[in-house]
């Protein structure tokens, strides 16, 4: 589903490459956890897959098609299939929860549709947002202002937004950072169950080896921009 081939990423002025020749294949429906310390390149790898980072060399294929950051139109089409859950679960704080969930459909909407949805949501759209929110356990939160939510609640909204996108691939960047272990486990359960149900490929960066091995098919470790040890792939 995802093929990363000899990927090298170097940021301007940086002493060493952020990603230094990464090779990685993720199978359709596989759940892959990436472990690594801060600065090991985990976030950069996810951002490169989503086309936010232009590699120095090497390439990335998603669903057989190359991610080309110079072809804006093709990149947008690729991104529609990739749901992204960012580390700081960046929400538009001033918008309601349901609008933030429906923001997942922004790639499929025209700018006019977006403007209309900003001012007014149809009953159908409301119902859709509610259904997705129910799946992440906060069905009644639709009308709330996103800025007023707690960290864990935001994480659920971020997952709901990714689900609203109907993606083939979900990239989750430390979705359980700053959550206590009990809550972290619930979020991971939610994320993995949704991935299972939707038959979505899930790539997730984590800090906690124990949780990684418990919830994911395969675990790889990133160290200073290179793939270190890797658990054997599981056939799914």
């Amino acid at each position: 589903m995802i093929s990363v081939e000899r990927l090298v990423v170097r940021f301007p002025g940086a002493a060493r490459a952020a990603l230094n020749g990464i090779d990685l294949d993720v199978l359709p429906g596989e759940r892959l956890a990436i472990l690594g310390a801060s600065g090991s390149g985990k976030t950069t790898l996810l951002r490169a897959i989503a086309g936010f980072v232009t590699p120095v060399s090497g390439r990335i294929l998603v669903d057989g098609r190359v991610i080309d950051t110079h072809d804006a139109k093709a990149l947008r089409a690729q991104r529609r299939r990739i749901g992204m859950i960012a580390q700081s679960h960046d929400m538009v704080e001033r918008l309601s929860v349901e609008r933030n969930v429906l923001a997942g459909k922004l790639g499929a909407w025209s700018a006019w549709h977006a403007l209309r949805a900003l001012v007014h949501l149809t009953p159908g759209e409301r119902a859709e947002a509610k259904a997705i929110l129910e799946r992440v356990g906060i069905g009644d939160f639709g009308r709330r202002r996103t800025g007023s939510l707690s960290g864990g609640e935001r994480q659920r909204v971020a997952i709901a937004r990714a689900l609203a996108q109907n993606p083939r691939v979900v990239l989750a960047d430390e979705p359980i950072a700053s959550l206590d272990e009990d809550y972290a486990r619930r979020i991971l359960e939610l994320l993995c169950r949704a991935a299972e149900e939707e038959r979505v490929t899930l790539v997730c960066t984590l800090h906690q080896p124990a949780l990684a091995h418990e919830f994911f098919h395969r675990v790889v470790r990133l160290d200073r921009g290179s793939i270190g040890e890797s658990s054997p792939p599981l056939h799914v």
Partner: protein
Amino acid sequence: MNVLNLAIPVWQTLAMAGAGTLIAVALGAPLAAYIAARAPGARAIYLALGALRAIPDLTLAIFAVVVVGIGPAAGVTALAVFYTAMVGKMFAELLGTVSRPVLESLEATGASKFSVVLFGALPSASTDLLTFGAYAFECAIRASVVVGAVGAGGIGTEIVGSINALDYRRVAVLIAVLVGIVWVVDWFGAQVRRQPLLALAIVPLGVAGLIGSKPVVFAAAHAVKTFAAMWPPVLDARALAALPVAIFETLEIAVVGTGLAALFAIQLGLIAARRFAPAPVAYAVRRVLDVLRSVPEVVVGLILVVAVGIGPLAGALALGIHSAGVLGKLFAESVENVPVAALDALAATGAGSVAIATYGGVPLALGPIVEHTLFRLEWNLRTATVVGMIGAGGIGQALFNSQQTFHYHEMLAYVLITWGFVLSAEALGKRFASTLAP
């Protein structure tokens, strides 16, 4: 002087400013979204907005007369064009301040740049946008004082007429009314900061203003012909020879004016800050600053021309007096934001409040004070060309005179020179700001 006599110009001023601001926001917001989305040609639009801002208000108003005829419509059009440029530019900058990760997370869904700006940047910056909209309205009220000259009426026309008639009592009353209006609008702006949706109250005012200022004609073909005839810009030998002096005078007006303003503003700002002076004194100085701030430069200039005569000094003083009000308020806020602990340390040495203010307040707030002053200098470089038209000299006067005598080729040349002025002042301001930024 009966009440109706005042009510009509007050209404004309509010209606003109309201209608102008409404159009400006309606046009400026999509332009800003376009610029913020970095769509093709965004840079060109951004530069064009800057060029529009280089045309003095009154010149714009006369251009508007060529298109929509004399009367309120011309005043509204001039304000709309000028503030569309201002709103477009500022909104684009405000949309640009929205946190990058939030926008990126929306881009990650495959959304177009426009959708991202609409769904992400617009709501995120909405408070700032509405606050700035209210501020633009306040500025438009001051500007309407000038553009009223094209038969749109309003307080400005009344003030000019009363000054020409040497009826200083009426001038004083009219200025008091203007100060009152600006106060109310200022108060309104403060409410908007707390409850941004209040800014929508300008909408009915703007709509009423628009209804009252229907264009008499719409002479599109005539306007195209007239504007095309202004091309190319030409300066004859005499005008070219006078150009260095004119540029120097404009610089002189701006620099001397800003310098004087900063000098007075430091002292007034320290007294006005709720920290050093006794509360009633601070309150009184604050109100004085409000008065200085609410009288537009051009009106100050018109009064000064009578009092101190014509020339760059009158222009510099006009900018200085108005800017002292603006800077005094900003300085007071900067000084108030200085950490209390630092000042307490000085107080512990037994220093008096004047010493604390001088050795503590000023040095600690120096960064913002310098920044505000430089921003004001940039602003005043543009305004120096505007007060030129009331006899202060410089490029502004040359531009105004060539327009008044229908030397439109020459006028266009001065507009372009002013544009160069405004652009370089902006670039200079940005440069200083970036050197100052930590």
